[in-house]
């Protein structure tokens, strides 16, 4: 269904939730007229920014950016392990079918969550060791996941599971590329992602696409 004009305005302003924005992006990808409408809105808002009095940056800003490009390392604090850096790269570039604005949305989400105090970021790996996405565990027990691609079947959703010695329980379902779980007391264990029917399942009905240790 074509997003209405008010929804496109809200999307252009950045005031939709992640799931609402993802729903708009799915509709946009098949609607050139809506894409043109969105472009006109975004062009207009971009003028607001380039009309602002420019703020100077330190002379070192350009050099710092180029150093970061060359190292592709996190600013100031930590160096990401190779597997994690590769997972990030796949998130940024590797998905062919999703629009650029959706890729950037997920990328920005990953950066924002990873930068929170106490956040721990790990790759989500398949049984063959290939990257399927990223997981960020937040200090308050929430889990944020970003997958490299949306569910491969239109009649399936992703379901996030917490796997511990006592058993397995669902942390939620999502049909886009990213998801943030509710706060939960999670002890030692693993998180896994499966494909399930819409609405999710009581227990996994398929082998996990990817797993990460907490």
């Amino acid at each position: 269904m074509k997003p209405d004009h008010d929804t496109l305005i809200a999307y252009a302003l950045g005031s939709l939730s992640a799931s609402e924005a993802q729903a708009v992006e799915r509709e946009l990808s098949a609607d050139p007229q809506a894409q043109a409408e969105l472009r006109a809105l975004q062009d207009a808002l971009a003028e607001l920014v380039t009309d602002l009095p420019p703020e100077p940056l330190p002379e070192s800003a350009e050099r710092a950016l180029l150093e970061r490009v060359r190292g592709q390392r996190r600013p100031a604090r930590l160096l990401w392990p190779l597997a994690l850096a590769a997972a990030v790269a796949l998130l940024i570039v590797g998905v062919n079918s999703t629009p650029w604005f959706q890729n950037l949305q997920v990328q920005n989400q990953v950066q924002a969550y990873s930068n929170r105090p106490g956040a721990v970021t790990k790759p989500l790996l398949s049984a063959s060791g290939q990257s399927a996405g990223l997981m960020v565990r937040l200090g308050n027990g929430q889990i944020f996941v970003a997958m490299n691609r949306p569910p491969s079947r239109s009649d399936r959703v992703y379901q996030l599971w917490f796997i511990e010695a006592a058993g397995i329980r669902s942390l939620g379902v999502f049909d886009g590329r990213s998801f943030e779980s509710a706060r939960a007391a999670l002890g030692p264990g693993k998180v896994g992602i499966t494909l399930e029917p819409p609405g999710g399942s009581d227990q996994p009905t398929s082998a996990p696409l990817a797993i990460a240790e907490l």
Partner: protein
Amino acid sequence: MEESDEQLIARMARRDEAALAELHRRYAPYLMALGVRMLRDRELAQQCVQDAFLNAWNASARFDARLASAKTWLVTIGHRRMLNALRSRGPAEFALEEWDAPTPARDLDERVVVRRAVDTLDGEERQLIELAFYQGYTHQELALMTGKPLGTVKTRLRSALARLKQHFLDRQARVSPSGEQP
């Protein structure tokens, strides 16, 4: 003749760091202005500007000029990054009245050259754009904050965006054949 922004992005896609540096020189001060306005924290704003340009570098191979101009693409990347930072951190203390004050009413006989897009908006429209675009409030939150019905908020935002779109089109139409802005 100066290269276009789109040409710079094409060079960035071929891993040309000089093109990134040039794009940074052109637009980082505007993204910094956006960041300072949204986050009220120069250090965080500077970090977000760097993140935005890194995002642009990494995504340059997927830039499609049919979907967005380079300027719009880059500003959107920056705006989204700063909104994420704002929502992660929580908004700074922000008074409802603390927004770009309207210019005084002008003599209708006076010739006025509108230079800024925001000058085309009335006071109410400016306030809503400030709260929505720079502070990330939803339509529902705007209705609560301003005491206006949700339908009114949507109508006013529609008219604000219509004015901004027209201003953009008028400005594009005034670009001289040599490509220079008036």
